[in-house]
């Protein structure tokens, strides 16, 4: 049998106390395909032995004064439930047949053999016990009952722990509840039988009253403390989450804002540089604060929508030329090749506006997606310029803006904005 193969990511990333990397050969009880506590399967995985061997060893040890059971119980308590052990295909009592109906799974041969062996050995055990000492004979059934009940409840606790790793369906939960109740009932029944056998059933009523009284007393005394403890626990968790968030904000402020402030202090005499730094920082912080998921930092990838691209381009030009650019975007659409060309043209226009019209105040960029038409306007309040007066060998406007738009099936228009300055209007039809 193969040694523990890596399991699905969902389970391996569980909150096991072991270090995550590398998958240490630490002893865990197996959560999958276990019969009782998953001890045998876990041990088998750890030792690299077939499960059946380990099980047989436990079974054999069981006959030596019940040592196997004791050992098993100790393992169960001490070893944490986790990922490990030999692989077992997810198994349930039912299987879903191709026609969609659930029916009892056909047990495979090994399983049947193991079960028969188990029953036979248990029978011989009981037989040998009851043959010899008739005194112990009377206790065997209550002890067995209690044992089974305890096993049920313990497995339940394991499952409760596992439920935190993987959400369990509603029906499963009902099933688990039933199992827990059954376990408790079995233990209770076992204890009752025990008392009957011991002949103390006569005082059953008294004992029961006494027991209930004691339990009520304990509940009264410890109840408030327990409630308080759970409250404290949840409160502490909340605080921890808050502290984490705080730390994240602090880290961001430290990374960006503080650094910028330091730079500003150092460059205090250069108004332009200070303004540039402050604006860049403002933009970044704003993106970080107001973006839906606060993922302002990982913005390294290429923008995929028009609005993003326009804002990114404006930010870059703003940073580079130190002229504030105000961006207003109405509507949005995915970026395609033609729009990318339009963005390039817009960038050129922004650079021109920042270079030649920056003294008049902020450059204004307006982009609008209306239906299939994408319109971008870039305007400045500088001195303005006359396209005809620009020498023919200056390619900036003619090629980078007008030519590029026309090559991609759009149009560009330069005009003197009313009230001074220049305005570049770019219009493009979307591809789809």
């Amino acid at each position: 049998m193969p040694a523990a193969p890596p399991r699905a990511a969902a389970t391996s990333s569980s909150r096991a106390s072991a270090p995550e990397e590398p998958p240490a050969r630490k002893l865990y009880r197996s959560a999958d395909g276990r019969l009782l506590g998953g001890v045998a399967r876990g041990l088998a995985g750890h030792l690299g032995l077939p499960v059946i061997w380990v099980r047989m060893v436990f079974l054999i040890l069981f006959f030596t004064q019940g040592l196997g059971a004791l050992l098993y119980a100790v393992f169960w308590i001490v070893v944490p439930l986790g990922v490990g052990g030999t692989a077992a295909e997810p198994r349930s009592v039912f299987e879903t047949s191709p026609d969609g109906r659930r029916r009892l799974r056909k047990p495979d041969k090994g399983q049947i053999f193991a079960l028969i062996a188990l029953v036979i050995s248990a029978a011989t055990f009981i037989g040998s016990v009851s043959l010899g000492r008739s005194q112990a004979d009377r206790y065997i059934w209550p002890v067995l009952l209690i044992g089974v009940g305890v096993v049920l409840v313990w497995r339940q606790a394991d499952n409760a722990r596992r439920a935190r790793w993987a959400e369990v369906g509603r029906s499963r939960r009902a099933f688990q509840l039933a199992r827990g109740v059954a376990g408790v009932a079995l233990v209770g029944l076992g204890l009752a039988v025990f008392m009957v056998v011991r002949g103390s059933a006569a005082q059953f009523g008294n004992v029961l009253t006494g027991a209930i009284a004691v339990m009520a007393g304990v509940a009264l005394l410890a109840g408030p403390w327990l409630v308080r403890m759970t409250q404290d626990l949840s409160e502490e968790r909340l605080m921890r989450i808050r502290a984490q968030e705080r730390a994240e904000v602090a880290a961001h402020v430290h990374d960006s804002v503080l650094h910028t402030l330091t730079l500003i202090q150092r460059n205090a005499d250069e108004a332009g540089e200070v303004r540039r730094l402050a604006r860049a920082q403002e933009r970044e912080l704003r993106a970080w604060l107001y973006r839906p998921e606060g993922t302002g930092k990982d913005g390294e990838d290429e923008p995929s929508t028009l609005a993003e691209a326009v804002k990114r381009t404006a930010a870059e030009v703003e940073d580079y030329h130190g002229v504030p650019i105000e961006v207003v975007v109405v509507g949005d659409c995915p970026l395609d090749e033609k729009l990318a060309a339009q963005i390039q043209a817009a960038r050129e226009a922004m650079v021109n506006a920042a270079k030649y019209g920056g003294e008049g105040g902020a450059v204004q960029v307006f982009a609008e997606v209306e239906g299939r038409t994408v319109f971008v306007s870039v305007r400045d309040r500088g001195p303005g310029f006359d396209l005809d007066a620009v020498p023919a060998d200056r390619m900036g406007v003619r090629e980078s803006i007008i030519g590029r738009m026309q090559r991609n099936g759009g149009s560009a228009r330069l005009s003197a904005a009313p009230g001074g300055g220049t305005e570049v209007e770019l219009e493009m039809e979307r591809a789809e």
Partner: protein
Amino acid sequence: MSEGVAAGSTPGASDGEQPGDGRRVRVVLVDDHRMFRTGVRAEIGRTELTGVEVVGEAPDVDQAVTVINATRPEVVLLDVHLPGGGGVEVLRRCAPLMGAVENPVRFLALSVSDAAEDVIGVIRGGARGYVTKTITGTDLVASVFRVQEGDAVFSPRLAGFVLDAFASTDAPPVDEDLDRLTQREREVLRLIARGYAYKEIAKQLFISVKTVESHVSAVLRKLQLSNRHELTRWATARRLV
């Protein structure tokens, strides 16, 4: 923190260049940052020069309502994010003052946030305009006077948000809500969003400045639709709220 009355309200003639031609406007500043209040007061509060008289300040919602009721200013410069419920709460509790027949109090939102929900929220609450804190002192004074006259002040960003809100990106244009903005109103908003001044818009569209102003006021009125229910649906559908 309390309503410190601005010093030096000498009734002398002011510079001819300021928008009011000797008119005065009484203003209350509501902002939880004292530094910012002080800065704005220093920038616009020199009454002889600007015609703006800062008659009170408040750092939170409760004090704002008290100060506004006590001083009855003409214009309130209102921050959007305030302790005690935010600018929207101030607007809600001052609604009677806004609707007053005589000397109505007008609100101009002044915020560092340019998130759409903040902007649309205060406009819907009854603010007559919205400017961001990066505005220059001169522009702020001009905006205050415009608001005082009952006009709306739309920054390019605000115009962008409104256009965005009314624009239908995927829905077919049978949406009745779309009819709420006429073609002309949208044209005006678009030019505002492109950074045009009202005067420039008038020149561009061959209409008078007054007409531009009335278009903008109409847009504002439509934003503050009385039918709250419809409005909520409208805003939710566009993920503005």
